[in-house]
């Protein structure tokens, strides 16, 4: 029997549409009937397969309604830990918002601390040269604050105090107006003369 006739038996067994006349011819032969019988037996053996699943998959325990209950946040409101997390989040947001607002809205000059009245300070730990008191008065600068160039001197005495020889400043910081500094060498010249023999600048 050729394959085409076997094919008809197979398709007929599966309930597919076949040429009825051709099927009749095939089944009229002994070989055709044997083929049909063997195919039926194979089908029966397949259906009689004793394989059974070992257990129930987890998918069944996680059915659709149960799976949907797993995530909704509405069921979590009653749990204290959610409130704790929410409160912590709000605090963080409030801190971040206040920081952002503080950087965006600078304080006005009226709220800045103003210089106090006159006072006096005592210079300690440093021997003053003769004629210079170790006590100085601190008074507000006259006039309105300006951006005029000012020079602040820092005196260092590597060799320790000496009564006979006045200290000589070896380093000083000078703050100058930016415009003068950038104008050129002439404008950037020192605003003060070198220190005198007592280490004082004029």
């Amino acid at each position, binding site marked *: 029997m050729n*394959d085409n006739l*076997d*094919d008809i038996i*197979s*398709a007929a067994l*599966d309930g*597919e549409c076949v040429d009825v006349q051709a099927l009749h011819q095939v089944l009229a032969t002994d070989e055709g*009937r*044997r*083929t049909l*019988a*063997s*195919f039926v*037996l*194979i*089908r*029966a*053996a*397949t*259906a*009689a*397969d*004793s*394989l*059974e*699943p*070992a*257990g129930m*998959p*987890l*998918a*069944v325990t*996680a*059915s*659709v309604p149960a*799976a*949907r209950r797993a995530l909704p946040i509405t069921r979590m409101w009653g749990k204290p830990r959610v409130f704790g997390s929410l409160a912590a989040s709000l605090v963080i947001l409030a801190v971040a918002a206040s920081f952002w607002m503080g950087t965006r809205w600078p304080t006005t000059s009226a709220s800045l601390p103003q210089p106090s009245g006159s006072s006096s300070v005592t210079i300690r730990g440093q021997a003053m040269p003769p004629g210079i008191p170790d006590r100085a008065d601190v008074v507000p600068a006259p006039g309105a604050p300006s951006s005029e160039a000012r020079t602040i001197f820092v005196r260092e005495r590597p060799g320790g105090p000496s009564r006979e020889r006045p200290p000589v400043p070896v380093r000083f910081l000078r703050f100058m107006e930016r415009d003068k500094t950038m104008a050129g060498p002439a404008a950037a010249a020192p605003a003060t003369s070198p220190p005198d023999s007592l280490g004082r600048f004029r």
Partner: protein
Amino acid sequence: MAAPTTANDLFARHHRDIYRYLARMTGSRDAADDLSQEVFLRVVRAMRNGGPVGHERGWVFSIARNLVVDAHRQRVRGIQVADEFAEPGRAGTQPLSVALAQALQQIPDLDREVFLLKEVGGLSYQEIAGLCSCTVEAVRGRLHRTRAMLRGLLSIRF
């Protein structure tokens, strides 16, 4: 009005056949257990997104078939079938069923797949052709070829 189909309904209707299909395709019970679980996990996920697409049984078997293809690519298969499926079965049919299981492992993958989708899955030629991306005629030819091979391997003679 009929109640909507749930994942449990699909499981009750198709789990056993899906497991048998997977076991015969992979040749391993462990792989069949894992893959059948994965099949119904995907079914549960898909049910959230609208449920079966097209014919219910064909849809579930298409999931299983895709998993088999993936598993085959990952070389999950490899356990010999001889001892794997030697288990007590129904009286009278056990020897032939065990022999059939062994014979199926000697069938080319594509032919075995078509055979199992038809015999175990009960899908139509059209559905099998859609799943396997081939024509109906190819499905018909493969089925016939597989049965003829099984007949020879099982030495079924009348």
